[in-house]
């Protein structure tokens, strides 16, 4: 049969553009949704846990115990919000009125003055993973402060550990979250945008019509990808502007490298949506499939919040088939580290392979469907 003809692909694109423009609701959502979400979550998400609700029980009622309470209360980490009996403490944590409880035993000051070292009990709610880690580290830092303040205990200092946090010296949650958030949002949006394009034509019967024309499967695929790719790039550009201006996220790298990564990533996910569309041929199933394959994996397995290095080896290899994993690296490293194309060559190569694979696979499935 004949080879790829740009004019025919362009005609398909043109038709798809008309389709997008005819549905302003979809167009508006596709452009506004990423911006809206980055704004909302950018303001909302904060990893540095503050004001953890603390229930306290002081059976000692001495100057030392009060000063211990005061150390907790004035630390900003904890907010003393209830005074309870030791018995109530566990129940309070269980009912989630408090996240942690501090129980000071009756002999606290006596032990301290006798030089035996005093001990207080801290109960921490272990059912919430997002707070338990920070709370534990706060407790250990309060221990040092409390020892110094209450017992005048100052251990001889032999050394000093000076930590420099590279690429995000103030540990700003936003610098960490916003590039990642962009990746996750664009991944899902791209899949959803194209997941219906082919299935819809099968359901409407217009696909049969299209097939009787000389247009080739690869031309249909490319023609359908191009307009959504352009839409995606515009959406990312908006998000980039917001990240830089509203949230002050630094951009250390080369914009062209980031742009190229963006394009590859969008094309890969749009092609994944098309593949879903070609394979399912029914809009209802296509959407379910798009949600299932897009929403959770790109959130949980891309390294957005849960680092890939912590996963078992098998799953680390498994995540390699997720384009979001690679673009997560490109986005974070170009924003914060200023990595060059060479340093990111692995990620770029992987994205290109995945993109080509998706397009080829979608075209082949398409072809097979056409033959009697």
């Amino acid at each position, binding site marked *: 049969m004949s080879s790829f003809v740009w004019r025919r692909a362009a005609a398909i694109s043109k038709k798809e553009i008309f389709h997008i423009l005819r549905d302003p609701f979809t167009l508006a959502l596709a452009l506004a949704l990423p911006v809206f979400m980055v704004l909302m979550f950018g303001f909302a998400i*904060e990893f540095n846990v503050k004001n953890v609700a603390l229930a306290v029980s002081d059976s000692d009622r001495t100057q030392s115990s009060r000063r211990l309470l005061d150390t907790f209360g004035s630390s900003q980490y904890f907010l003393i919000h209830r005074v309870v009996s030791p018995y109530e403490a566990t129940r309070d944590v269980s009912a989630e009125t408090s996240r942690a409880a501090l129980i000071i035993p009756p002999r606290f000051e006596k032990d301290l003055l006798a030089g035996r070292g005093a001990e*207080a009990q801290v109960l921490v709610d*272990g059912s919430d993973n997002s707070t338990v880690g920070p709370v534990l580290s706060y407790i250990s830092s309060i221990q040092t402060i409390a020892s110094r303040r209450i017992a005048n205990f100052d251990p001889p200092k032999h050394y000093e550990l000076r930590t420099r946090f590279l690429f995000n010296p103030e540990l700003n949650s936003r610098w960490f979250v916003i590039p990642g958030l962009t990746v996750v*949002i664009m991944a899902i949006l791209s899949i959803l945008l194209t997941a219906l394009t082919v299935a819809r034509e099968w359901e409407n019967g217009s696909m049969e019509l299209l097939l009787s024309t000389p247009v080739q499967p690869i031309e249909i695929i490319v023609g359908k990808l191009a307009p959504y790719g352009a839409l995606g790039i515009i959406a990312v550009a908006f998000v980039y502007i917001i990240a830089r201006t509203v949230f002050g996220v630094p951009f250390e790298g080369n914009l062209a490298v980031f742009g190229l990564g963006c394009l590859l990533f969008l094309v890969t996910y749009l092609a994944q949506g098309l593949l879903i569309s070609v394979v399912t041929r029914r809009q209802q199933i296509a959407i379910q499939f798009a949600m299932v394959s897009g929403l959770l994996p790109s959130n*949980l397995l891309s390294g957005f919040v849960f680092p890939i290095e912590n996963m*078992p080896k098998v799953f680390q290899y498994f995540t390699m088939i997720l384009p979001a994993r690679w673009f997560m690296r490109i986005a974070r490293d170009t924003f914060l*580290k200023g990595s060059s194309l060479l340093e990111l060559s692995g990620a770029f190569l992987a994205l290109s392979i995945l993109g080509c694979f998706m397009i080829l696979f979608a075209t082949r499935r398409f072809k097979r469907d056409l033959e009697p």
Partner: protein
Amino acid sequence: MIRTLVGFIRKELTQTLRDPRMRILLFLMPAIQLTLFGVAISNEVKNIRLAAVFDSEDSVLRDIYERSIAGTWFIPAKSSQLDPFKLIQAGEADAVLVPPPGGFTRALGRGDAPLQLLVNATNVIQAQSVEAYLQSIVSDTVHDDLKSVSPDSSIRFDVRVLFNPDLETSKFMVPGTMGMLMIITTMVMTNLAIVREKEMGTFEMLIAAPVSSWEVIYGKTIPYVILGMSSLPLILAVAVFVFHVPMRGSLLVFFAAALAFICTAVGMGTLISTYCRNQQQASLAGFLILFPMIMFSGLMFPLENMPTAIRWLSQLDPLAHFMGLLRNIMLKGGEANYVIIHVASLVAMAVLSVIASFRRFHTTLQ
């Protein structure tokens, strides 16, 4: 009334389950994904590449390095260059320990020795835990090597982590993911079922038929509540038998909470469908609603620190209520007050969304 309703429900169930791919998506997929996420995701820090610049005489720093590598957190970085900053920039190491000139051991002898730690902070959470952990290793090693006898501090805390003492990630991830998997399929399915009929024009026919609006609403929602609930036993089995998440509360309370949650998901799906004209819109609207729900559920980000306005907004997130319920019931045994408040919120949301959709349907008809 009952007969029409049964007819409705039967039609909707056969229609949805006719496609074998839908059956897989509904029943098998959640269990597979739950297994996948439960095994893959871990908060235990691992495979951090650590490098340290020391010569053969620097015995204390060598001890620190060897101790770090011996644990599960760190692996040695293969260092091709000596500049610590470039090591991290090139992605060859995640953390580097840099001693003062002349070595850390010698500086310790002089007292007040500075030891520099460079950490890649592109992942903020990880960088903080790496710093805290290395801090304790350095303190222990210096303490042991100098054989100083003074205890670290005179006030000690006996810290007990309740409900998940070993901090196993799967114990909080699995209940959290269960809720997400349930709402994604159920809500999207309900939404699409109605929008598809609107798109094809069969919904008009339904309106012309001699059935009341309430029958239409019930007939369109009850089947999806049934489908949502029927996918639950398999997920629960995976959670309890594969991941050994305890079931400390009563099963009855668990299923009651799940029923309330599914009703809310179905109710909200119905409400969204009244605003969508075609399936493309329905899918984007689904994303618009589901994504914030996941973000504000408390699984990935702590809810405590969000601005007050957003915390109020998260009260409208059924997933946040359900996730709290699942953890409370499964891990803590279900505190009566807590369960009642959150189940009641879910029920209220379900009722409100059904009433709102009923009114929306009603106005579209007239």
